[in-house]
């Protein structure tokens, strides 16, 4: 664990850096594939809505389950005297419960008959057969309310995000990540065929909040790191954002793990002890959504944000300045400046350390340059083996977060 802490530190200083932004095409491709798969499964298989949405009745009775339980229950249903029960679903939960799901029944006429039939079959009192009944029109009302809740939530979230970040592009990136999580979660439900219940829906709405939370944590750091970006000559927006992502990586992993642990406990007890019910449904949606939310805030939201920001004229200027500066540095990259107060990382690193390729493609360029941005220490150490000059290099103003103060103030 302390190893993770140490990695956390190295990620923080940029000693170790993973190029999240530069490899964005890779993440986009992965996500695009996942989204396409989600949409296809949604179109192909659709969602398996629970009776709460379609209307129906659900009976549960305790019994010792054996191989004949389902078949004999079907026979019992057929003989119950209630019409149209052939389509009823009979299944067992664990080894001590049988569940019957039917069309919606008349609460006063048909329910008692079905209850009696089930009770008779498993040999208990009809009063011990638990059931829930949902009228058909009620189901459509629930669906309608759910969709309204979703829409209202998305609008409110957009507003809050907008107010908090006061930045259209950040809000847009956060919302896209949100929709990404939403589609993936729905896709997994369609693909695996999990039943969608109101509890699922609550779970989905909650994870939208959670996914946003993750994005907020990451963007908060991005915002902090790009505060002085307009006057920067050393780092482009993408590089600064990448540093931020690397800096919050450990934190993001920790918040996600800690958030997911109780949900996993819920999922476990819900699935193992209860078998079916709101606990499992909720936890499942939360589980899928939280993991997706953590992924999207790092791999989708931030690269998207950087990409959009880089299109801004200001940011283009910054990027141009950084390029120009680096080009200049390349010219004199063999010149060792032991006394300069502001030595700068050099693009020349691309050919020595971080990037081995000498024919930089677009993505690789970004990769290389971000490695430069984050790899100040590496640069200075590589080219200035003298530790004293390394510390001088670290003292430059534009990279305040990168150096321990103890080293800067030497």
């Amino acid at each position, binding site marked *: 664990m*302390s190893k993770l*802490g*140490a*990695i*956390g*530190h190295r990620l*923080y200083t940029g*000693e170790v850096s993973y190029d999240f932004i530069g490899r964005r095409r890779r993440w986009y491709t992965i996500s695009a594939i996942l989204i396409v798969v989600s949409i296809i499964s949604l179109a192909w298989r659709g969602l398996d809505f629970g009776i709460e949405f379609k209307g129906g009745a659900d009976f549960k009775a*305790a019994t010792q389950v054996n191989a004949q339980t389902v078949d004999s229950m079907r026979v019992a249903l057929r003989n119950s005297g209630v019409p149209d029960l052939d389509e009823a679903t009979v299944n067992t939960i664990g080894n001590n419960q049988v569940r019957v799901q039917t069309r919606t029944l008349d*609460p*006063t*006429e048909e*329910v008692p008959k079905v209850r009696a039939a089930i009770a008779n079959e498993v040999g208990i009192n*009809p*009063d011990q057969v638990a059931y*829930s*009944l949902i*009228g058909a029109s*009620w189901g459509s009302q*629930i669906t309608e*309310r*759910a969709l*309204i*809740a979703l829409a*209202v939530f998305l609008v409110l979230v957009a507003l*809050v995000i907008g107010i*908090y970040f006061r930045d259209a592009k950040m809000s847009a990136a956060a919302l896209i990540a949100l929709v990404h999580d939403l589609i993936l979660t729905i896709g997994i439900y369609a693909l695996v065929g999990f039943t969608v219940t*109101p*509890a699922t829906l*609550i779970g989905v*709405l*909650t994870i939208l909040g959670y996914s*946003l*939370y993750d994005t*907020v*944590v990451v963007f*908060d750091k991005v915002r*902090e790191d790009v505060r002085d970006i307009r006057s920067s000559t050393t780092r482009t927006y993408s590089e600064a954002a990448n540093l931020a992502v690397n800096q919050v990586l450990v934190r993001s992993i920790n918040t996600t*793990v*800690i*958030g997911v*642990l*109780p949900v*996993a406990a819920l999922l476990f007890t819900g699935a193992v*002890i209860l078998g079916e*019910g709101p*606990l499992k449904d909720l*936890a499942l949606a*939360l589980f899928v959504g939280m993991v997706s939310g953590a992924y999207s805030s790092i791999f989708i939201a931030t690269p998207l944000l950087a990409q959009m920001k880089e299109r801004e004229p200001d940011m283009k200027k910054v990027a141009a300045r950084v390029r120009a500066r680096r080009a200049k540095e390349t010219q004199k990259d063999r010149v060792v400046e032991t006394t300069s107060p502001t030595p700068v990382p050099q693009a020349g690193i691309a050919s020595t350390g971080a990037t081995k390729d000498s024919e930089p493609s677009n993505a690789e360029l970004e990769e290389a340059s971000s490695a430069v941005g984050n790899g100040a*220490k*590496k640069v200075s*150490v*590589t080219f200035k083996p003298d530790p004293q000059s*390394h510390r001088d290099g670290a003292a430059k103003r534009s990279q305040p*977060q990168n150096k*321990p*103060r*103890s080293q800067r*103030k*030497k």
Partner: protein
Amino acid sequence: MATTTGHPGRTLIVLAVLVAGLITLVAVSGNWTPKLGLDLRGGTTITLTARNTTGAGTVDPNSLQLAKTIIQSRVDSLGVGESEVTTSGDNQIIVTVPNVQQDELVRLVGQTAVLRFRAVYAAEQVQPPEPIPSATGEPTQGATAQPSGEPTAGPSQTAEAPPGEPSTQPSDAGNNKPLPALPTAPPVPLDKACVPADGKGTPPDKALDWQPTEACQAAFAEFTCETRVTEVADQGIFACNQEKTEKYLLGPTLIEGNQLTKAVAGIPQNNVNWVVNLEFNSEGAAAFEQATREISQKSEPQNRFAIVLDGVAISAPSVNEPIPGGRAEISGNFTQKSATELANVLKYGALPLAFDVSEVNNVSATLGGEQLRAGIIAGIIGLVLVVGYCFLYYRGLGIVVVASLGIAGILTYASMVLLGSSVGFALNLPGIAGAIVAIGITADSFVIFFERIRDEVREGRSLRTAVETGWRRARQTILIADTVTMLSALVLFVLAIGSVRGFAFTLGLTTLIDVVVVFLFTKPLMTLLARTKFFGGGHKFSGLDPEHLGVPALPGSRSRRPAVTRPAAVSQEGV
């Protein structure tokens, strides 16, 4: 920097007072456990959706409230105790009854009560099937019916124009029970006997001309009050009074209850007896006048009309004269209670509301207990996992996590108990799930704070300073994150239906408590801990030791190592 350090001790005292206050409140309320939802202790929840029988349009809140009262009294009549009837949204009534699995309950609350006025064609004394035990012990309850055939005593009640003379006739006070107690026998199509061969119904304006067929009359002779009949509006029916002491052969509907605009109980001037005053709308008034004109000419028992609710004649007054003007007065041997009850039933019948049983949820006590157990187990597992991870990763800081979660737990539990006894908040299974999910969300706030502190330390600040600067930065992240969670909880709570609201509620509650705990407990605690040697000095197990943070030395501490060793080592790997 020093200014923001504040007075951690003082803040902690504020929190201690808050916690002590809550616990005192709980002690005062005398309830040490939260109120449990029906899915955790077994019981039945029925959701009814009201719709306007007059067509589209919204449901009048007052009507819904009245319907709620009526349904509540229906449920109470079952004597199940602890039942609860609440309205939800603008058109729902939710009935919750613990530990009752009776199908009877669903039938009772779900039935649509349509009040109808019908003319009486025949009335006959019957023996009550068995002595009806008096539920309330009132002397009037279960009183024998007045034999309507006796010339000296008329029907129990009379209807007349309000200014008219109050009836002095003895009465059986046949309307003590406000609501019909329904027979449990399944309905039989006995009433088919009175349906003409062509199956045609009789509209209200022709209802007075309706004549029962011979088959119908024969069937009426067979009819007992144990037989449940399905009431068809435009057909003649059989019905009994509430005590099942008199059965009636009734004509098709003359007037529907929704033409009734008012029904109040009161004592007319210069009188001592309670009466029930009715008012019809103009259409109802015309129909009522015509009906009373014809009925009053007839002889006993055909000079009576019956007010039928749910197939039961709740009142069958006789008419002595035509009643014009749409105002009528039913008099009899009413007490204040019985008069008010009749008025309420009439009002309810006049409500343009019908109820659909939208949802029935029935959980056995066994399953409820099992769900509660599963919820608690999930909570314990989740808690252990989170605390374990925190100790593993944050070492000594894990104590802060445990303590903060502990405080949050106490606050949450106390709030739930108090909300249970004050506003009737019932913890249900989704609610428990919400609380468990909140463990993670609450602990996440600490993670954000701790990581911030570490960031600050990495930037070279001393731990004491890092706690303050880290807090300032973590604070806004925690606040926005909690705002988002709160927002989702609010949206869910407002828009969600049914039991899942419990999830939204606990999620919102725990989010609020998270803010309280982080601000009033975790932060001051960290400030205090940073002053200790163990944490402030970066002890090996404090979670803030240099090695753990990956910094060469803890800034400001004595055991500073040369700062260059580490980067130098890295450079060798890098080259």
